[in-house]
């Protein structure tokens, strides 16, 4: 039995869907009362590319850019991932046809959506069987090596959407400010942050520690799992769990930031794929994007608390989990 998961949207992209999710965010579903991550079991991931050009991007340039974005994910050290370009097609993206298609689509009504990813998956096993991506042709795009003023960098946005295609949700590692017409990113440390950098920049062609930890969590080899560790714990306010808190692990030895979320009313979280060694933990409310960019309506997100640090310096064991961490926060 298969069905298409629903889509969500933000300026850059999409995602989050019905069913439970696990920390990171990874995309997931709930089957027989347990959470299952969505991921590809059949590798390489075969995808078609539409043979459509838009202003500034030919179909060939588009295909090459998509292939490069796939290879960036595939080449993460310690990850068992592969992809294969299956050919050009005239089929539009977002069809439920068991074929993964990536291409441009005219969606002027989605005036804040650069791209969007949809899935077909097995609701029992969580196996992804199809994923389509469209890039909104209503925007101006660029494949120039150094980027182009006022045009969005296709490779940066493709890297984000292909992260979704692999099963990753949005990251909360970014700071924004409210402006007329929406939020503007001040800074971000994850390609999977839901709001894009301004047009003209190419900074999101490079995966960050948070993205790498996420993809290793989904597709990491046994060797990489044995070489990394995780942290599990709770975020509490007056002794009660906080749902939807963004928890960041900071490695002072190398400056890496990796985020996760509390996903239930108990305030529990797990952050995997971390470097072994001491880590600083910080919890903050999810107030730098719309909460529905991260969670579906089943998560009762609490944003009424002040950011706080754990008083315990957490030592992540090699291949193991540092448990029973509690971060206490206070109301705003």
């Amino acid at each position: 039995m298969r069905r298409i998961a629903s889509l969500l949207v933000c300026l850059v992209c999409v995602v989050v869907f019905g069913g439970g999710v696990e920390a990171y965010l990874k995309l997931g579903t709930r089957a027989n009362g347990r959470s299952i991550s969505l991921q590809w079991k059949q590798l390489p991931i075969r995808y078609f590319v539409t043979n459509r050009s838009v202003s500034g991007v030919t179909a060939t340039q588009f295909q090459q850019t998509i292939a490069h974005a796939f290879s960036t994910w595939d080449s993460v050290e310690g990850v068992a991932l592969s992809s294969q370009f299956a050919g050009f097609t005239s089929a539009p993206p977002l069809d439920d046809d068991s074929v993964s298609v990536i291409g441009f689509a005219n969606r002027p009504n989605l005036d804040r959506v650069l791209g969007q990813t949809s899935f077909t998956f097995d609701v029992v096993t969580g196996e992804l069987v199809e994923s389509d991506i469209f890039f909104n042709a209503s925007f101006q795009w660029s494949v120039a090596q150094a980027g182009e003023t006022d045009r969005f960098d296709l490779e940066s946005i493709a890297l984000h959407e292909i992260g979704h295609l692999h099963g990753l949700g949005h990251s909360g590692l970014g700071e924004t400010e409210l402006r007329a017409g929406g939020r503007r990113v001040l800074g971000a440390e994850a390609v999977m942050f839901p709001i894009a950098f301004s047009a003209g920049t190419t900074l999101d062609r490079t995966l960050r520690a948070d993205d790498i930890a996420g993809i290793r969590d989904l597709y990491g080899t046994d060797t990489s799992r044995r070489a990394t560790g995780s942290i599990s714990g709770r975020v509490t306010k007056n002794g009660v769990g906080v749902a939807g808190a963004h928890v960041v692990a900071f490695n002072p030895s190398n400056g890496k930031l990796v985020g996760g979320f509390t996903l239930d009313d108990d305030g529990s979280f797990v952050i995997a794929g971390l470097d072994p060694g001491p880590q600083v933990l910080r919890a903050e409310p999810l107030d730098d994007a719309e909460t529905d960019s991260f969670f579906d309506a089943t998560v009762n997100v609490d944003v009424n608390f002040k950011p706080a640090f754990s008083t315990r310096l957490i030592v992540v064991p090699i291949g193991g989990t540092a448990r029973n961490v509690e971060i206490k926060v206070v109301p705003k």
Partner: protein
Amino acid sequence: MLVVPSIARAQLVGRDLPRMGTFEISGGALWSGGYSFETALANETRNPTTGTAPLTLFQGKPRLDTATGAEAHLGMYLGRRVSIEGGVQFSRPSLTVRTSADFENAPETTAASPITQYVIDGSLLYQFRSGRLGPFVSVGAGYLRQILENNSIVETGNEIHGGGGVKYWFGGGRRFGFRAEARVSSRSGGVSLDALAKRRLVPAVSAGLVYLF
């Protein structure tokens, strides 16, 4: 009249000075200094339209704190003034990170984790004089072993040290005494919370009892 007692004392002390092959065991309390690591910045990539410098989410000042502990030595005299000894130090300093300058005004916090630290070393000692109060200097090298929380990670390194102190011998038998020492250790390796591969200076003082046999 003034000269005679002085000679008598020298003969007495000289008779009781350790000879080659005499062993010395000592132990006592230890205070070990700490050191700071480079300030760590939790940086995010800045949106180029809002500035050029990275956006610092917060900063952390990592440090290995001072600690008290215990030490023990077993030495052997190679002559009246020169001895060698092996020793072990044990202490439980905390590894801390003081977070501050949070972008969203999170309160400053010190996150801490205790570590278990051993130094196993060897030293060469030189005694300057043969009296009830005997100053000495020492130099040596050692092996550093630091065990992080829950025995999850072990970091090792090495050290070289130099210092000095005094031994004060009780009573006429000159077998029991008090020993106090200060040393500076230059460490390489061990736990690190920055990317700098540099030696770190650690002062230490100790005091305890000593016994000759």
